[in-house]
């Protein structure tokens, strides 16, 4: 199985990287581009009981993989 985790900057927090990418896309002539947010994507190969894993990955996300002060996370185990 794989745990697929998406970590994104919190909405209220400045995302200079997203802003810069947005500017660059507009500069390159892409139309209809709005706000851009740049986050992280993690893929973890896991084995074990899905229910247990669910709790473990959630804990790992909260305590270690994301920075709860400035980031949100969500994940899926498939």
């Amino acid at each position, binding site marked *: 199985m794989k745990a697929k985790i998406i970590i994104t900057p919190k909405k*209220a927090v400045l995302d200079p990287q997203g802003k810069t990418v947005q500017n660059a896309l507009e500069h390159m002539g892409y139309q209809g581009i709005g706000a851009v947010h740049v986050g992280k994507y993690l893929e973890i190969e896991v084995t074990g009981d899905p229910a247990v894993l669910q709790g473990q990955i959630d804990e790992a996300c909260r305590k270690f993989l994301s*920075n709860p002060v400035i980031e949100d996370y969500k994940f899926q185990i498939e």
Partner: protein
Amino acid sequence: MPDPVITPALIKQHGLTPEEFERIRGILEREPNLTELGIFSVMWSEHCSYKNSRPLLKQFPTKSPKILVGAGEENAGIIDIGDGLAIAFKIESHNHPSAVEPFQGAATGVGGIIRDIFTMGARPVCAVNSLRFGPITTVDGSPAGPAVLKNRRLFTGVVAGIAHYGNCFGIPTIAGEVYFDASYEGNPLVNAFCLGVLRHEQIARGAAKGIGNPVFYVGPATGRDGLAGAAFASQDLTEESAEQQRGAVQVGDPFMEKLVMEACLELLATGAVAGIQDMGAAGLTCSTCETAARAGTGIEIDLAKVPQRAPNMTPYEIMLSESQERMLIIVHKGREEEVKRIFDKWDLPWAEIGFVTDTSRMVVKNHGVVVADIIARKLADEAPVYQREAREPAYLAAVRAFRLTGVPDTTDPAGNLNTLLAWPTIASKNWVYRQYDHMVRDGSVVCPGSDAAVIRIKADSLPTAADATAAVTEKYLALKVDCNAVYVYLDPYEGAKTVVAEVARNLACAGAVPLGSTDNLNYGNPHNPEIFWQLRESVRGLAEACRAFNAPVTGGNVSLYNQNPGGPIDPTPTVAMVGLVEKLEHVTTQWFKDAGDAIILLGEIADRQDPLLGLGGSAYLQRVHGLKTGSPPRCDLEREANLHLALRGLIHTGVVKSAHDCSDGGLAVALAECCISRPIARETPGLIGAVIDLSGYGDLRQDALLFGESQGRVVISVAPLHAAKVIAQAQALGVLASRLGTVGGSALQITTSAGKLEGDTRGLHDHWWHALARAMSGE
């Protein structure tokens, strides 16, 4: 949304006392609204008003013929360095934000101090940092518990944050210091320093001059970041206060800052700017009311014109936001087009948000409706000032009574030396400074790793000038920041003098004469009389010492309320000093150069009048005996100043090949560092041994002789044929000098009356160089 009623609870929440609130009513001659309450609360926070420390700061020497802009006048002081050139420098803390979010907290600390410098019209050319954390190792080498792991995380985050901001901005981070002590657990200290260079005629002022002049905002849109950060910095760090702040973490954008800086310097060169100020602590509030107060004018802005990142921001939020990388610029009327052209060239967001008035009031409107109206000068300059109660701390009685009688002399000096070299506070800080770009801008003559860093100032160090052809004389500046806070804890007055003495000594070792200094007073809660006593006594010591070394204070920062549930931090007045090295040939580094050179100690081998022989508060007592006590080494300012003078005199004669002062870990550690600290390349240290004979000092305890930290000592090396002459010259200058031994071989050998200490340079280097990396990887 209607304004909430101003209740006593709301007043308290804003960190204002009932008396302060009365004073606000008096100034306004009416009730304040919420926005005004917020404005007063940040302006009257310790961070902005120095209400608890101002009377003490008056003791600092702040004048010298070289000072062009003095302490407190502007965002940073300015010192003449000759040939029409000047420097602006300042240190500032970002302790609480770094406790909450170490990476961004430290990064925005660097960003903030860089803005303070280019606001003065100077081009920032180097950065320095002073850091403190709880221990990153366990005493007995047992596996790290949660506290140690957390300290490591904070350390990692802070260093990465400083690296991120400084490296991307393109400023060399060229010196610093790092200490580890349990008192900083949960309340790390992050003090960031920046120095910039400019021509005398390029000094810019933070004054809103010229009635009718338009006021521009430049930089990224305002968000809810760091709401009331100044107030946050001015209260104890608690779980609740940290939690509040978490919602509003400031994120730094060094790329944006680089653009803002280049645009501002380019703009200043056009002469279109009447006044300029960064939006630092208390953002728009502080910059508008201070510029008006300085110029004796008024200012009117409309918040609807301020670029906003989040929808539905209230006037309160906009005025108190601490979004980073923003500047306020007052432009001579009629020159708006030039301003817009430059901002557009750098693709910067900007807005014209108001104008200068003759009302002496700061008037803030939102879509034309007045939301705040305050006499600028009263807000900026009439904060209450408190004379706090002071009481000598109870622990000092035991500290003074401490004697060495219960401490057996060392039986394993070689083992002790290795232990000390690997102690994180003493160990090489390469794990830190190799993460910093310390060479960008082609000026790093002496990189981190020697006593003081030396930087070259050349034509492109300066801001763009109207007359770009004017020749520039190259200059060499030495810099260092220091503070042995354990000394200050154990004796605030004497310890504080030592702080200044050590930093000045480091400059002298590099061959520099002090130009000036800047200090950051990091203390616990000043409402505690014992802490206020620490503050008062140490400021007295700092002031006296800065006078003694002719290093007037050009500005600084006060950070109080550094406490965690475990208690206050050790009193930590960090002092950064800048000196001038007159000629390139005078630049001196700390490591031994050639086999056969004579090793000479300037100063007395130990302070025999000190009952603890320099072991009080020493690294040795702390690390080897687990004792953080005893009166710290005494600091004789006159002697110390004379030593620096003599050392520089010898350096000027061209015979001194290396100079290194004795500080943490004493003579043995200093000698070891002379043998192992020369960097050649990655994985290739420049190692050279030394043979030292201390057998003539049989009257001293071994531990005191080797690891005592008596002040006023410097180890130098000279070619053998100069040795006798150098000793005679030093003595003629009133400084004791004695030959300790000879450079050479592959080991450091120290013979004492009790035996021989021998350490292979490879082994010593390994302990010292890799200690931090090992600690951080949990090895």
